[in-house]
């Protein structure tokens, strides 16, 4: 929609060109959320696309995803064969309500910085043990683990003007086996829950998103039994953390968390025995 309060667009070629940050400024990546709702407190959009960050850089260390990488670019990424978890890229994009046409504009960084429970690029990067590089205004870049970035519904650790620059997914995590479960109240609708489990050298990383206000992650040194899993979920995710909204009640999401977590555990266990 038209953002009628916007009076200026800045298109810097370097983030340093933006000096003092003030109220009314907003970074724009894909703009697919910004342009979907009135932004009456914003008067200036600062374009991140003009910074020209390369979208995807793969190396032996892993994958460096620019915040401005579009979802379409991510889904088209041709991953090395040993990155067994790469199918999650598309599965997580498909977990969004947004259509493939939105993927053509929407960015990985935009989805993460919106920090909605159903932001499935958060699910992806948290489950693959990603690390975000943040560029604060007037300070040195800092790194934050993906799982610690989102702090609540539509809340995160970014300070005013601070940028998400990139996401690093370590090769070790990308090389893990995974299991994925998801549900929504409508077919292909907004996610009510995403549970992703990954298994490396016998250890399990279980990540719960969408059902909760922020991602929850549990590390098990080895694949747990059903009872241990349930106990861990009980201990780690407080009842109050389950997110109630029109896309699913909190009690339903809590129920599915246990159900899907067990399915993920069982699937990965079966894979380990083969």
């Amino acid at each position, binding site marked *: *929609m*038209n*953002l*009628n*309060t*916007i*009076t*200026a*667009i800045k298109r810097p070629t370097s983030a340093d060109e933006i000096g003092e940050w003030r109220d009314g400024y907003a970074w*724009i990546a*894909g*703009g*697919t959320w910004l*342009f*979907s*709702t*009135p*932004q*009456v407190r914003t008067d200036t*959009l600062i374009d991140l*696309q003009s910074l020209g960050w390369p979208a995807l850089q793969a190396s032996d260390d892993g994958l460096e995803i620019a915040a401005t990488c579009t979802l379409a670019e991510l889904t088209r990424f041709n991953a090395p064969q040993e990155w067994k978890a790469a199918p999650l890229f598309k599965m997580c994009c*498909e977990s969004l*309500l*947004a*259509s*493939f*046409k*939105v993927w*053509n*504009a929407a960015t990985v960084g935009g989805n993460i910085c919106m920090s909605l429970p159903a932001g499935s690029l958060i699910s992806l990067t948290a489950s693959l043990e990603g690390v975000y590089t943040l560029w604060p205004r007037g300070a040195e870049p800092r790194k934050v683990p993906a799982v610690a970035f989102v702090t609540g519904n539509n809340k995160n650790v970014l300070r005013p003007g601070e940028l998400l620059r990139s996401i690093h997914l370590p090769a070790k995590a990308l090389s893990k086996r995974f299991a994925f479960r998801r*549900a929504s*109240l*409508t*077919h*292909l*609708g*907004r996610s*009510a829950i995403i549970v992703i489990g990954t298994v490396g050298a016998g250890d399990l990383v279980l990540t719960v998103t969408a059902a909760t206000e922020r991602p929850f992650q549990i590390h098990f040194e080895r694949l747990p039994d059903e009872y241990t899993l*349930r*106990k861990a*979920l*009980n201990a780690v995710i407080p009842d109050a953390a389950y997110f109630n909204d*029109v*896309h*699913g*009640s909190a*009690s*339903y*999401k*809590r*129920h*599915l968390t*246990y*159900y899907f977590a*067990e399915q993920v555990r069982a699937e990965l266990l079966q894979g380990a025995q083969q």
Partner: protein
Amino acid sequence: MKFSINGRFIQEEPAPGQCLRTFLREQGCQGVKKGCDTGDCGACTVWIDGTPFHSCLMPAFRAAGREITTIEGLQQNGELHPMQQAFLDAQAFQCGFCAAGMIMTAATFDEKAREDLPHMLKGNLCRCTGYGSIHDALHGIKAAEDDVAGHACGASLKSPFAEAIVTGKARYTLDAVPQKPLHLKVLRSPHAHARIRTIHRGEAIAVPGVVAIFTWEDVPRRLYSTATHEDHLVDPDDTYMLDNVVRFVGQRVAAVVADSEGAAEAAARLIDVDYEILPAVFDPVEAMKPDAPILHQTGLESRGNIYVDIHGEIGNVAAGFEEADVIHEKTYSTSRVQHAHLETHGSIAWKGEDGRVHVRTSSQAPFIAKQKLCHLFGLLDRDVHVFTERIGGGFGGKQEMISEDLCVLAALKTERPVMWEFTREEQFIGATTRHPMTTRVKLGARRDGTLTAIEVHVVSNTGAYGGHGSETLAAALSSPLAAYRCPNKKADGYAVYTNMVPAGGFRGYGASQTTFAIECAIDDLAKKLGVGPFEIRRKNMIRSDDWIESVWKDATDVTFGSYGLDQCLDLVEASLASGRGLAKPDGDDWVEGSGIALAMLESGPPTEHRSGAVMALLPDGTYHLAVGSTEMGNGSATAHRQIAAEILATRADRIALINGDTDLTPYDTGTFASTGTVVAGQAVALTATALRDNIFSYAARYFGCNAADLSLHDDAIICANQTVPLRELVARGAATGHRFEAKRKAYLSPRSVGFNVQGIRAAVHRVTGQIAILQSVHAADIGKLINPMQCRGQIDGAIGMGLGWALYEKMVYNDKGAMVNASLRDYRIPTFADLPRSEIYFADTYDSVGPLGAKAQGECAINAVAPAVANAVANATGVRFPDLPLTPDRIFEKLGRCHGRTSKLSP
């Protein structure tokens, strides 16, 4: 900035925050539609460098220097793009508002994409078709038949607007705007109930570009109802154009007109309103209590918030329950849902050089809107002109005058053209909805299944204003009860004011709500009796020799012009037994069941309804037909041409048509209450017959023969072995002063009845609560099919809308009465992925009342859908879910308790 739009280079500076959608429309690409403006509906899809985007989400500046293609640029060398041709062949649209975006999306698909349509089309919403015809288009299925003279009726002819729709040229309400209009924006109430103490507009009026601000102090203090009916007295005069009391969150408080939408929005934010908050009540049962805050002080306060109560009894239900071996009693409820037609409400008003007020609007009832405008502004009938062109869906939502009045007010005060386009959010918070109803049903039956008594108690939440409150309640107590033969029936209904958004007309119109309750209750009773759902219905359903009555003894004008309910049940039963459809998904946690429901609906409303048509044979030998009814995708214009063509033994495309214009067409009450075929179509049939008689009477003189020896064929008239082109006949007639014209009016009485039966086979996952529709089958008794493809399409669409109501849709409110999901992102209407392909069958009937044997069909099909789903879920799980919608989380809440699944799988 430089842009390339459909190969044309332009240099323009879009506003900094402008999206590509509005920029392209400013450049003349009106095929780029706004359905949501939030990237959820896909109606604005365009290509940038060949890649499809939602143009509402794309900053215009980002498209600079790139190649933009819109629907207008899709044709190559005057040839339709294959996808445009496919949509044309399959007639893959009804209102057509989504079609441009659908085509621009689908035209990018390769084979692989075509195999995954649920994903690929999830960003394109269609509210009319149920996606069946869109599926056909994408699989190259041709549904439209050729237009052959003498075979118009019963042929699947294309819509007269089809080419315009697939090329983006069809002009919807806001696609033709006068030069430099003022833009109107409304400040809406944040409170559910408040009195306005003061409104300060000083800061707001100072915003550059703002021309005027109107509040309750500036409008005629004249009560009216926004609901439109022929009889203005069936709706309460309880509304002021702008009021000093607000009664729901979202009510209009002030209107701003400005040179730009941005200025009007900025000013609306700066209007300073001092509210005295009043106590509010949201639940109709609470609102009926003696200590509830009273909404309206109109002299009837002693009745509390009950706007209307309706009662009736035939026989003696107390005695009927005495006779019963088994009694079933339960309360069922339906949710508040929105029409979600893709074209939002909107109007443009201006004062013409002729000194008259002209209003271009998105209305189902332009003639009634005109009467209401005359009433509000004290204008003479001759000084107002209201018209529609193409309308992007209605479903009853546009049986309301909620945008025209403020545009006219502002146009009269400023002497400038004024336009107002609702946002999608305003559709949810400031337009009307379906009436939520809570229905207690009590049924008594003998052991053999024979009903001995039916009693219903209905409470309808009409919201803050009472438009449609009484008529929907009357409908709720009428046909759903008349569908069953039982000597003892009783109903009590209450429509109650609450501080909620006003409810209004919605496809099915009250009957949907109680059909849900009664059809669920019939199944629950059958289960108690141990008889099957078909058996209990066959035993008790109305038959063709029955007296048609609900709970009132008075004679009615409802009659059996035809009867096909028995055939409908047989068709659905056979199909459900056939084993067609999908198999139950693997796994023990999926349980399977099937359910049916029947619905009966009178062909047309009990309130007065009339329509007129004028037809002429033109000098070139073609015809011109003017009909007052509007066309909003319901297909009545297509049917009207076919009816006229059938009677005149010509081709439909030899009949030019205009409709919905108070200057250019005869009076019509409006396109609502399923009247497009049976009232307006009847007017067309009478008019075409009169014109044929007119032609024959002149031709008899011309040929010197009996009129009985004459016949028409295509573009000629035939007498024995002499064939004369019609244009010659007209030329001859004109020379002698003969006028080949006719005008007739139709009025609806008696009214026939139509029937629908829906069957659903579903699987329910006992742990996740997910419902999979495995088979959907529908049988309709709608008389002769004027256009089978169109009839099928409308039923497909009604099933889709019914499944949305049954499974997904609910307007959700916080404890302050504010809606929390007022967007298509959070209020989910069905997507392609959500709907099954339905089998659709028709009873073989020919109606003695309707035109050319046809009955009404626009609404009835939706009524049987939700109860059939609920009955299938009850059959599968053994648990009754009496409240809509059946979302997985609500299924889980109840099944978890019933099956103890949570205790096993949760901590």
